[in-house]
């Protein structure tokens, strides 16, 4: 476990990876990315899928944000803010983990 009991919010230099308990993939019948886990399904919207796809334990949060700013040009601040917010939610749900 890399998360502490009282987690700090995600920071630009950190790296996040999918919790190995979850399977992330594209699901054609839902026309979306999904997370699958024991007896559970999470259907992800496009933004959530874009972010989790890049939680590979290698990219830093800053790199992830830069990629999404390229993908969704126009309002860099809003994209960055959105990524931080999503990462915090995903981490709290246990889907992703902060790498040491």
């Amino acid at each position, binding site marked *: 476990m890399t998360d502490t*009991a009282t987690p700090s919010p995600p920071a630009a230099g950190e790296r996040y990876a999918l919790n*190995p308990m979850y399977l992330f993939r594209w699901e054609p*019948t839902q026309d979306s990315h999904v997370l699958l886990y*024991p007896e559970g399904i999470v259907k992800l919207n496009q933004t959530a899928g874009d972010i989790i796809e890049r939680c590979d334990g290698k990219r830093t949060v800053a790199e992830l944000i830069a990629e999404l700013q390229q993908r969704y040009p126009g309002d860099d601040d809003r994209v960055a803010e959105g990524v931080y917010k999503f990462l915090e939610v995903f981490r709290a749900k246990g889907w992703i983990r902060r790498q040491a």
Partner: protein
Amino acid sequence: MPKDGSVVRLDGQGKPLWLVLELTYRCPLKCPWCSNPVDYARDGEAELSTAEWKRVLREGRELGALQLGFTGGEPLLRDDLEELVADASALGYYTNLITSGVGLSEERLIALKAAGLNQIQLSLQSSERELTDTLVGARAFDLKVKVAHLIKAHGFPMVLNVPVFRHNIGQVEDILALAEDIGVDYLEFANIQYYNWAMVNRDELLPTLEQLQAAERAVQAARERLGDRMTIYFVIPDYYEGRPKACMNGWGAIHLTIAPDGVAMPCQEARVIPGLEFESVRDQPLGWIWHESPLFRKYRGLDWLPEPCGSCSEKEKDFGGCRCQAFLLTGDASNTDPACSRSPHHHLITEAIAQAHAPGRKLQALVMRNDRNSRLLAQGGGCGSNAGQKGGGARLTVARVEVDHV
């Protein structure tokens, strides 16, 4: 939904997201709360063949099924299990094996891993060897603990499923310690639901409210202590809930079970309801059964709801509860589930609780799930206090498919 610690959003968009295959009713254990039909040993059709199960897998996937449960009986008694898992994985299912652990050798674990099995749900009945072995009617405890460690050693996500009833409800802390030692990822305390064999043994199995509250406190303390190291589910018995469970997230909404002989059902217990027209995958395409058959349309949606459900503000939350329980307790499957305090039949629940805990009631031996008792019960014979009542099961009645949207 009588389960805390989980998020459930109900939107299958008309797809059977959760497909459960009961590969066989055969089982090495004799659990007296088994969810299989009490008359499972009657002469009936043969189990589906490997090729027939593969056709079900293909048709289910075409309908949009994502989560797949292999259960039974004991699914490991099918020697084509690995072949079916491999087929299901290739089709894109998330594959869950729901097992007693009996027969799960290291060789089979390796083969199942290679076949693409995603997770294993192992049952455990007690933290004590002697009580476990007595309750399941076989020497199973040591084997189960060994299998649990093997499952983790081979890197499977693991759900430890503990059916909860009067005999083990005081062991929550010991079971938690055992689960921690094994390194379980998900621990599910599932208060049994009273159908089928559990209904036959209801007076002996139903815990008291005080026992239930103590168990809940122990679970809450463990959650705070363990944080995100282990997810702990606690399924409350609806007898004490005052509101019915959102059984299967609604009839024909997201859940589809196929019995060993190919009969398709909205839940594992539905066969107990008389007068329904059951269809077999041997005779009909799965898509027709799911979308069009009278059985699956019978209680689908909210339009059929009786009063007091029809005008109830909570109808979209619980869909009137469980059809099988409504039938078992009131004799009419289209009644409001008597587990609801607003049901005119709710007294049947409070009376059942009072009966189980009546001072001076003579304790009865548990009616074990075995072929002999099954044949007796099939004839309506007397080997239990409620021997005339057949039906409904325990484990998956509260379908734990969490469907979340982000």
